[in-house]
């Protein structure tokens, strides 16, 4: 008597052992071909830009002293690789970013939990959070530098502070959007506040937390680069500032491109974590 409704079909697009009609195969081919065209065009644009840049610089249409050019950038990269300083700088920047990012995310989530735990605290801190959220955190850079010293610790603090308030507010708002009836349901089972946090609030807010992480990746890079501009001892931010000061645009451009690649990779990594975490969809 209980078996007559069917579950919603879980679609498993096209693959499998069942035979596919010619029409459907055509459709799949079209989709696949379109995807390939898009990828080819994307790569072509990149090659085109670099080729035009290189040729224009060679033909002296643009001044490579000011714009640099791909071949010089490549040479710079090779030199940095040879004297080993490339990995030292990347190592500094990457470590600072990852530590700052993790610290900002973890402390931010912790703060959000505190605010959720105590409504009194949340209401007391609300105006402070609003002000801190609107304040451009970069303005705090010199203060941090003076207070905790010119070194990686200041850079990490910069990355942390820039993502902290955003994370706190974002995750706290996520908590508040959790369906009250879900909490009610657990309370009827006699759940404690800690159990409600563990069983509903955190798992229901995973997607909020992950989007906060995605924003934080970008913010952590901003914090670290600004920090390195100020501290200027090592790291890609230091290379950029230094290159700018001595007019070595090759160094600046190379560093920016490495930065772009690293930032993109880190973002991809967070997206990958998102897929792993949200496996029920």
């Amino acid at each position, binding site marked *: 008597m209980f078996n007559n409704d069917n579950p*919603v079909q*879980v679609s498993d697009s096209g693959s499998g052992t069942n035979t596919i009609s010619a029409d459907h195969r055509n459709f799949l081919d079209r989709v696949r071909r379109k995807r390939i065209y898009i990828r080819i065009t994307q790569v072509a644009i990149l090659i085109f830009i670099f080729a035009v840049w290189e040729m224009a610089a060679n033909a002296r249409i643009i001044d490579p002293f000011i714009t640099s050019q791909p071949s010089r950038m490549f040479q710079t990269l090779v030199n940095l690789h040879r004297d080993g300083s490339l990995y030292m700088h990347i190592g500094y920047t990457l470590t600072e970013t990852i530590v700052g990012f993790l610290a900002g995310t973890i402390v931010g989530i912790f703060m959000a939990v505190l605010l959720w735990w105590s409504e009194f605290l949340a209401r007391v801190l609300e105006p402070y959070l609003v002000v801190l959220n609107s304040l451009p955190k970069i303005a705090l850079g010199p203060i941090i530098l003076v207070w905790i010293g010119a070194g990686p610790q200041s850079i990490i603090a910069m990355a942390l502070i820039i993502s902290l308030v955003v994370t706190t507010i974002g995750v706290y708002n996520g908590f508040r959007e959790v369906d009250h009836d879900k909490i*009610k349901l657990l309370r*009827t*089972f*006699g759940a404690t506040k800690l*159990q409600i946090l563990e069983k509903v609030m955190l*798992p229901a807010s995973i997607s909020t937390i992950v989007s906060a992480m995605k924003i934080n990746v970008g913010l952590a890079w901003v914090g670290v680069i600004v920090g390195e501009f100020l501290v200027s001892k090592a790291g890609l931010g230091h290379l950029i500032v230094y290159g700018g000061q001595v007019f070595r645009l090759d160094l600046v451009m190379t560093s920016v491109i490495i930065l772009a690649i690293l930032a993109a990779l880190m973002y991809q990594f967070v997206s990958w974590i998102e897929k792993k975490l949200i496996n*029920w969809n």
Partner: protein
Amino acid sequence: MTEEVIVSIRNVSKKYHSLEGETEAVKDLTLDVHRGEFITIVGPSGCGKTTLLSLISGLFRPSSGRIMLNGETLNGTTGHVGYMLQEDHLFNWRTILRNVLIGLEIKGTLNSQSMEKAKSLLHKYGLGDFKNHYPHQLSGGMRQRVALIRTLAVDPDILLLDEPFAALDYQTRLKVADDIWKIIKKEAKTAIMVTHDISEALSMADRVVVLSKRPAAIKSVHNVEFSCEERTPIKCREAPEFRVYFNRIWKELDVHV
């Protein structure tokens, strides 16, 4: 059904306080619920039906009067009830089995024995093959059945159902109501269901309690008996008494639009 009283509501009143003032949601309400009984509560919308369920569950404390469970005065949520809400509120990050186990996890009574019991409930009611699925892979009716099994897994003294079918379309609703009713009867559970649907209330109830407008007080109680062969929610809708009860309750509700 025995005459053993499982829940006793004695002169209970409940007031809500807000900055705008004080609202009396329930006023001097007295009701005994017997073991194994299915009680449905109907009343005008906003009359305090849900408040009544929250009081019985221990989520709210009465402003005056008291509620006794198995002869003892109720004091907070003790996990004695199973609550079913309008939506199933299955956690979409948990598999069906782990959804069913949540009450046991919270009460700290999850062990191999209670786990087996939860699994056997799923099997018994046609969900055994879906225990490792996620909620979004199930139909609305199946999900509501899982929600019921989640409450049954903790073996509550009493089930509270707050318009549990309101989110379903009409046809599904009839079928799911039938299913849920059969499970509750088969497990010999005591249930109190709130609804605004008179037919639904009648079709499932041993007793229908009609509440007045806010503040909720009992207007009348109807012992429902049908002359149909098989007393199931769907079958008894065809019984000749159904209309009679319906009209009587309809008049008592005194609906003005």
